[in-house]
């Protein structure tokens, strides 16, 4: 019961002092809120970006067109060669006859024109569709395929994919830098708030020391104050994360820009993200108030 009594007294004291220095506490809370909002956005974006990249990795294929002189035998040789490349996941071959049949199925117009083509007059090309294991290898694999005989052209989502992936990377790195800077500012503001509290209670602390109060009991209210500031600062970001993301998901119908970029289902992540926000708020608050207590309470 004794620790419990001391605990409840400390929490009361912490709240009291938050209201006593309201303007400064408010500044710390706002700063925590902004920081955690950034953190929330960063986490959600990076979760989704990871998803996009996976999606892209799974769906991107290289299309290889063989030149018109290539025979089925040539194609088999090329396929054999390609199979040796370990970066390649799967290879699907479509002869020009297959392509023709497929196109004929698609429309009546094609059908009537193409039905007159024989195997020798068919102007279409044999093609391979190749899947690689990792999106980064797309370029290298296509380059190596280009060097083989009987290759007319190799196509993959060249520029777009590269740009998309590198843009995501830059955005991710920039967000991390901004978030770290904001966390430092928040820690500084919270520790400053605690410093003011300590100074405003210096007299009381001195008397506590003189009448035999243990250091931990003197320090605890300040730790609680930082802790509470961090938790209060996390409330708005959590609400925004939960409702904002759900709303955005509904409005966008689960997609961004096009069907390729699918957003993560809100129920899977919002609560995890909220938990992360609370933990960051509480930990930053406690660490910065602990630093202040150590620095300014020379006891």
């Amino acid at each position, binding site marked *: 019961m004794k*620790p419990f009594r001391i605990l409840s007294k400390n929490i009361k004291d912490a709240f009291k002092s938050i209201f006593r220095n309201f303007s400064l506490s408010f500044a710390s809370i706002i700063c925590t809120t902004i920081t955690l909002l950034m953190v929330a956005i960063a986490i959600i974006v990076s979760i989704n970006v990871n998803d996009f990249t996976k999606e892209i990795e799974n769906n991107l294929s290289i299309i290889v067109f063989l030149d018109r002189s290539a025979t089925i035998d040539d194609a088999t040789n090329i396929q054999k060669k390609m199979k040796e490349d370990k970066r390649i996941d799967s290879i699907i071959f479509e002869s020009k006859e297959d392509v023709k049949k497929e196109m004929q199925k698609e429309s009546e117009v094609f059908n009537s024109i193409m039905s007159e083509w024989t195997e020798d007059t068919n102007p279409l090309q044999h093609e391979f569709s190749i899947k690689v294991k990792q999106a980064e290898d797309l370029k290298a694999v296509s380059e190596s395929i280009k060097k083989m005989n009987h290759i007319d052209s190799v196509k993959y989502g060249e520029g777009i994919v590269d740009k998309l992936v590198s843009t995501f990377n830059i955005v991710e790195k920039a967000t991390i830098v901004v978030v770290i800077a904001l966390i430092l500012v928040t820690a500084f503001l919270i520790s400053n708030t605690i410093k003011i509290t300590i100074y405003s209670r210096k007299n*009381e602390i001195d*008397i*506590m*020391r003189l*009448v*035999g*109060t243990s250091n931990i*009991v003197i320090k605890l209210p300040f730790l609680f104050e930082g802790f509470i500031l961090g938790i209060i600062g996390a409330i708005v970001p959590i609400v925004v994360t939960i409702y904002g993301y759900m709303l955005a998901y509904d409005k966008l119908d689960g997609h961004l820009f096009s069907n390729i970029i699918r957003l993560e289902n809100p129920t899977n992540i919002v609560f995890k993200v909220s938990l992360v926000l609370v933990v960051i708020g509480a930990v930053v608050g406690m660490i910065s108030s602990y630093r202040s207590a150590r620095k300014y309470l020379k006891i």
Partner: protein
Amino acid sequence: MELIEVKNCYKVYKNGVTALADINVSIKKGDFVFVIGSTASGKSSLIKLLYREEKPTKGSVFVGGINVAKLRNRKVYKLRRKIGIVFQDFKLLPKLTVYENVAFPLESMGVKKREIKPRVLKALERVGLKEKIHSFPNQLSGGECQRVCIARAIINNPKVLICDEPTGNLDPKTSKEIMKLIDYINKEMHTTIIMATHDKDIVNRMKKRVLLIDHGILKGDFAKGSYKENEAI
């Protein structure tokens, strides 16, 4: 070992001032000791060593078996719970009532509320302030504030009561009453009293052991001393 033992104690402040030099004192349980000396003689430094407000530069200080000189900062509270301290400026918390001020040490130690109440009332009864428990310090006279301070100091039944010029801010009549109270605590509760003062009348009247400190040196230790005979020093 005696209750309080000061051995070969030196105190040199950071600015180079030597406040105490080679002090050797031992005080038995139940003693009543005055520490006298002019301003800046080092008597305050000696008192501060006893409750570990200052650390000795050299030598050892034992209070109730605790080596005060080697006590770590975070363990100081263990010493402070064994001793009571009375200050010249009372050091009461202005926003707390008399009752709350006296209960303050117990509350911060996490003692149960229903245990606190009888102890606080008893301490206030001893100092004769039972009817003013709901007053705030600024509603009290200097003498009454000092009584609250004494009540707070004895709430833990300390072995030692350290008084740093307790009558320094009080008029002679009130000083007399406070001294009566301190004497009563010494006799009734068998609390060892160590009191720094420069009030000649009090020292002469009480006829107690006197430690005379001058320029940081212990100039005299008289069993039943008085101020007059040492005034020349």
